[in-house]
C-alpha cells in the first residue's frame, strides 16, 4: 500500500517545465528521501503534494486513513515547507497553539510542551520566534508538523543550515516519527542524511526523476561498475600505446595521470586481468584501489548525460 502516489504530475511556469510528468509511489510507513540539486524541482513537487502549488497537469493521491474531504487530508498531513517563516511576534508555544486552533484541535498546554520537548525546545517555549536561531526555527517547524499526529509528514530540507547537534536531534526525531508508522517524505541535499535515514530514495534532475529505489538496490546497480585507481611505476614508451589500447578494451572512462590511472570496470573479475596487463609489460604496480560508488557518486552522476537511469519512472 502506498501513502503517496503521483500520476504524471507536472508543473510549468510559463514555458519552463519545473516538474515533468513525475510518477512516484511512496510506501506507507517508510522514510522516503527526495534528492536533487538546487533547482531540480524538489520543492515544487513537495509544494504540489502539500497544496501550496497548483499542478499544471497530472494528479496525485495521498492515501490516508480517512480522506473523505480536503479538510480531512490537511488534518492528517504534517508539512514543514522550505523557505517559510514564522510570526516574529509569537513564541514557540503560541505558534503551536495558533496552528492547533487552525487545525481544529483541542490541545492542552502540557501537550504543546511535550511536543517542544521532543524537538529540544523545552527551554524556549515562551521565547519570541524573532529571537530564534535558524536551527531552532527548523525544530519548531518539525514540532508543528506533529501537532495533528499525521499519517504523512513532508519535510522540505529539514536540516539545511542547522548545526551538527541539532542535525542529530532532528535525525533521531525523524526515526521516532517513522517508528510510529508515519510516512516521512523528506527532501535533502545531504546525501549522508538520506543514506542514514531513508528506506527509499528518488533522485530528481531538471524536473525528471532519474532514479528511484531502495538505497541498497541503487548501490547494487551502480556497484556493478567499480572505480579502480592503479598507482604504477614508469611506463616504457614503447609499451604506452599498447597498454592504452588494451586497457580501453577491458575498462571504460580511462583517465591517465602521471603515476596513476583511473578507470571503471564493469565487474570485479576484470581487475586481475587488468593487473596482468601491467605486469605483463614489466610495469610495476604499487597499489590498486577499488571504490564502490557512494550515494554521492550516484547523485552526482544523475545529472550527467552518460548516467543511465537504474529505475526509470516507468519501472516504479
Amino acid at each position, binding site marked *: 500500500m502506498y501513502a503517496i502516489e503521483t500520476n504524471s504530475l507536472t508543473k510549468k511556469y510559463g514555458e519552463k517545465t519545473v516538474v515533468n510528468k513525475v510518477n512516484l509511489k511512496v510506501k506507507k510507513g517508510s522514510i522516503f528521501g527526495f534528492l536533487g540539486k538546487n533547482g531540480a524541482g524538489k520543492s515544487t513537487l513537495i509544494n504540489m503534494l502539500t*497544496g*501550496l502549488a*497548483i499542478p499544471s497537469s497530472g494528479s496525485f493521491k495521498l492515501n490516508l486513513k480517512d480522506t473523505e474531504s480536503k*479538510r480531512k487530508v*490537511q488534518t492528517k498531513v504534517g*508539512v514543514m*515547507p522550505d523557505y517559510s517563516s514564522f510570526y516574529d511576534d509569537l513564541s514557540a508555544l503560541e505558534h503551536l497553539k*495558533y496552528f492547533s486552533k487552525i*487545525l481544529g484541535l483541542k490541545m492542552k498546554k502540557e501537550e504543546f510542551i511535550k511536543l517542544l520537548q521532543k524537538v529540544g525546545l523545552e527551554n524556549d517555549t515562551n521565547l519570541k520566534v524573532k529571537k530564534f536561531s535558524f536551527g531552532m526555527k527548523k525544530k519548531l517547524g518539525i514540532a*508543528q508538523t506533529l501537532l495533528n499526529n499525521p499519517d504523512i509528514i513532508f519535510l522540505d530540507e529539514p536540516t539545511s543550515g542547522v548545526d551538527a547537534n541539532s542535525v542529530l536531534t532532528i535525525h533521531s526525531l525523524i526515526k521516532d516519527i517513522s517508528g510510529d508508522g508515519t510516512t516521512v517524505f523528506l527532501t535533502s541535499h545531504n546525501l549522508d542524511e538520506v543514506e542514514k535515514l531513508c528506506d527509499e530514495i528518488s533522485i530528481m534532475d531538471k524536473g525528471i526523476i532519474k532514479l528511484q529505489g531502495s538505497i541498497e538496490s541503487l548501490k547494487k546497480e551502480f556497484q556493478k561498475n567499480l572505480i579502480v585507481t592503479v598507482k604504477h611505476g614508469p611506463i616504457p614508451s614503447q609499451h604506452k600505446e599498447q597498454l592504452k589500447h588494451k586497457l580501453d578494451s577491458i575498462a571504460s572512462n580511462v583517465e591517465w595521470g602521471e603515476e596513476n590511472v583511473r578507470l571503471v570496470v564493469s565487474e570485479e573479475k576484470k581487475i586481475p586481468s587488468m593487473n596482468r596487463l601491467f605486469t605483463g609489460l614489466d610495469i610495476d604496480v604499487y597499489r590498486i584501489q577499488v571504490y564502490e560508488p557512494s550515494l554521492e557518486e550516484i547523485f552526482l552522476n544523475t545529472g550527467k548525460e552518460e548516467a543511465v537511469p537504474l529505475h526509470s519512472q516507468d519501472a516504479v
Partner: protein
Amino acid sequence: MFAICFREFKSLFKSIRSLIIIGVILGVTLGAAKLVSSFQSQLQEFGLGDSAYATGLLILILIASPLFVSTLTHSTINEEVKSRTIRFIATKTSRENIVFGKFLGNLFFWIVCLFIALLLITPFSKAFHVSELMEGIVFVSYFVGLSLLLSTLIPKPGVTGFLGMAIAVIVPIVGLWSIASENIFLKIYSYITPYYFFSHDNDFYIYIVLIYPIIFLAISLITIRKRDL
C-alpha cells in the same frame, strides 16, 4: 477560520497604526460630541436632536474610514505571502478559510471600534445608535472587502499600500461628486461606490452595499485558489 480571524483581530489591536487610528476615531468622536452638545438647542431646532452625535461619527466614517481601512488592511494577504508565513497556515486549512478569516478579523476590528465610539457618545446622546452602527459596519465592510481584494490580487504590499491610499482618497471624492453629477460616466461610477446608496433617502439602499464585499470576497477566493503560495 476563526483562529485566523481571531489572530487578525488581535494583531490589529496590537499595531501602532491601528492604535493611532483608534485614537483618532475616539478623539474625533468625543470632540465632535462635545462640540455638538454645546449647540444642542440649535440642532434640535433643525430636527437633528440626539442623533447629531452619531451622525458626526458616521460622517467621519464616510470620509476617513476608506483611508483608515486601507492603511490597516491593504497587506493582510500579500504580506503573509511575501513573508511566507502563509505556507504554514495554507497547509493546515483551506484557502477559503484564510480569506474569510482575514476578512472577518478585519471587519470585527472595525465593528468593535465603531461600537466603542458609539458607546463613548452615549453620555451625550443618552442613547445607543444601533442603526448608525449597522450603517457604519456596512460602509466599512465595503472597504475591508476592497482592501482584501487588492491584497490578494497584488503580490507586493508596497504597491497595495500606495494603491489603497490612492483609492481611499479618490473613491470618497469622486463618489460624493458622482451623486450630484449628471455626467453619465460619473452616474455609472456612483453605483459602484457606497456613497450613492448612502445618499438615498430609503435606508434599505444602504444594505445593498453589502453585495460589494461579497463580490470582492468571491474574486479574492477565485484568485487565491489559483495561486501558488
